[in-house]
């Protein structure tokens, strides 16, 4: 088996008395798409925030390709190939749609520290950004401010920003939440294409079991901040604890 590209060891974060993520240890490998599921408040987003650096853990460690990244700032983690999209849309609202993506491409190219040349002197960055917009069918909205997009289009832009980072590790946090049925496939196709490139590690927080069944190679279940199940989809779905957690979720029946 390939070496893990991402690993957390005993990762824990406490908010006051509340343990939001409790000693979570698990490893992920390139070419694998892992769905992370669990009820509301289970700690999925918080675990993401720990891995991509928006939050610092109370204890435990995070490794990228064997390197301890627990103390690195979020920007450096992005630099070493950890990319994440946000559950709550998190864009540059007054900048154009194209500029949003162009900034992510520019960061990836390491061109942020150039004060003396015009943005126009880097047409390849804009070209790449346009290609990413085309993937999520937003090229016609390129010059509109991000804040003016519909919710569904903002979700697409959210994902386009992640794709533009071109990371080794893709972390999607409910990418299709609140999207209409005809909008969601654009994003699911994109995730499918990333998965098809066997060199990437994909983590997907998702409530819709139909999506999980269609895409996941593996399922990790979080509950009350703890990792309660981890394995192949058919095995995990059959576990009593998972059926219990998902009882009442309309889409949950296998």
């Amino acid at each position, binding site marked *: 088996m390939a070496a893990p590209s991402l690993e957390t060891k005993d990762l824990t974060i406490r908010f006051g008395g509340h343990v939001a993520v409790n000693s979570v240890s698990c490893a992920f490998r390139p070419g694998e798409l892992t769905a992370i599921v669990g009820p509301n408040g289970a700690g999925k987003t918080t675990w993401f925030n720990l891995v991509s650096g928006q939050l610092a853990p109370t204890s435990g460690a995070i490794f990228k390709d064997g390197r301890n990244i627990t103390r690195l700032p979020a920007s450096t983690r992005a630099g070493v190939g950890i990319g994440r999209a946000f559950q709550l849309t998190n*864009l540059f609202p007054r900048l154009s749609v194209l500029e949003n993506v162009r900034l992510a491409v520019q960061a990836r190219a390491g061109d942020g520290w150039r004060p003396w040349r015009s943005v126009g002197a880097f047409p390849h960055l*804009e070209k790449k950004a346009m290609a990413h917009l085309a993937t999520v069918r937003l090229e016609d909205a390129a010059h509109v401010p991000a804040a003016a997009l519909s919710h569904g289009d903002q979700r697409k832009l959210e994902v386009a920003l992640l794709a533009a980072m071109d990371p080794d590790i893709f972390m999607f946090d409910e990418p299709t939440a609140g999207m209409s049925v005809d909008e969601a496939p654009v994003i699911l196709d994109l995730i499918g294409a990333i998965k098809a490139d066997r060199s990437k590690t994909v983590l997907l927080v998702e409530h819709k079991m139909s999506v999980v069944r269609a895409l996941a190679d593996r399922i990790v279940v979080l509950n009350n901040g703890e990792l309660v199940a981890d394995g192949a989809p058919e095995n995990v779905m059959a576990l009593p604890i998972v059926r219990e957690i998902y009882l009442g979720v309309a889409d949950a029946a296998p």
Partner: protein
Amino acid sequence: MGANGPSLPDRARNGRLAVYAIAAAIGLILAFAPFLFGDVRSQQVAARICVFIVLVASYDLLIGYTGIVSFAHTMFFGLGAYGAAIALKQWGPGWSAVLVGGGAGIVAAAALAALIGVLSLRVKAIFFAMVTLAAASVMLVLASQLSAITNGEDGLVYVAPKLLTPATILFTGADGKAAKWFGVRMDGKIAAYYFVFLTCLVLFAALYRIIRSPLGAVLEAVRENEIRAEAIGYRVVAYRTAVFVIAAVIAACAGVVWAVWLRYTGPETTLSFAIMIDILLMVVIGGMGTMTGAVIGVTVMSLAQFYLKDLMGAAAEATAAIPVLPQLLNPDRWLFWLGILFILLVYFFPAGVAGTLMKKGTH
């Protein structure tokens, strides 16, 4: 900023053109100011506008482009000015005094900005603003207390480098005195004005270059959403500190120019909070996050500060026969009318003159 394609509404494009046209007209008037206005006072106004455009534009780089609120901009302006002034006073007039003294002031500004940035730009914006306020107060007190080198409240009077003094003849005319071109004597006074104009033009161009660059794009990203900027790979603290240093260096350069032009440097002309408030008002009138807005804001505000009194005096005389009006228009009430002007501007141009005309950032 950023790309604006054909989807941009016509109205916004016209507004954009109008803003550039106004700014270009102001630039042209400043470029030929000595030939257009003969009197000393007008040249003083023109030079102040040049220096303050740089000062306000560099401040807008912080507050408008990056979203950093600082009250220490006059501190950096003052460091540059005092650097040049002290050297000119101690060593006598000469370019080496301007370069070495001004250079030392600029380096001090950069170092202090880096220190403040590293120590406090990670914390909450309000705390950072307080730190800058405290630093600026300390600097003001230092300038008044260290009277052995700063001459305290009275400030320093000195002589500018020889080229810029009135006795200098740039081109000799038939009468043996400085030649007259288009009615203007080619002497040190005109050299001094163009020293101010050209240096400020270069500094403004540098600022303009920065906001149009990849770095400028990152600054706007930091302003819009620092968490996402960090998440896609930009070290926000580093960018904030860098832009704080850049703005400080440019403000200090403007201070050097101001010190050379005025041949006087004191707390009132460089460090006072009245100037900090002027800078804030000028940024707001012009429009935050619009470099061209600085040109408009500074011009409107400076003209009002210099000429509103005269205008009101004339108006009071003209309306002498009418009751009440002359009292209202009494030149002593000019600050009241400046306040009214400011309220009207903010009411009709909520995003500043340039910002509103360009319909930037449709909220």
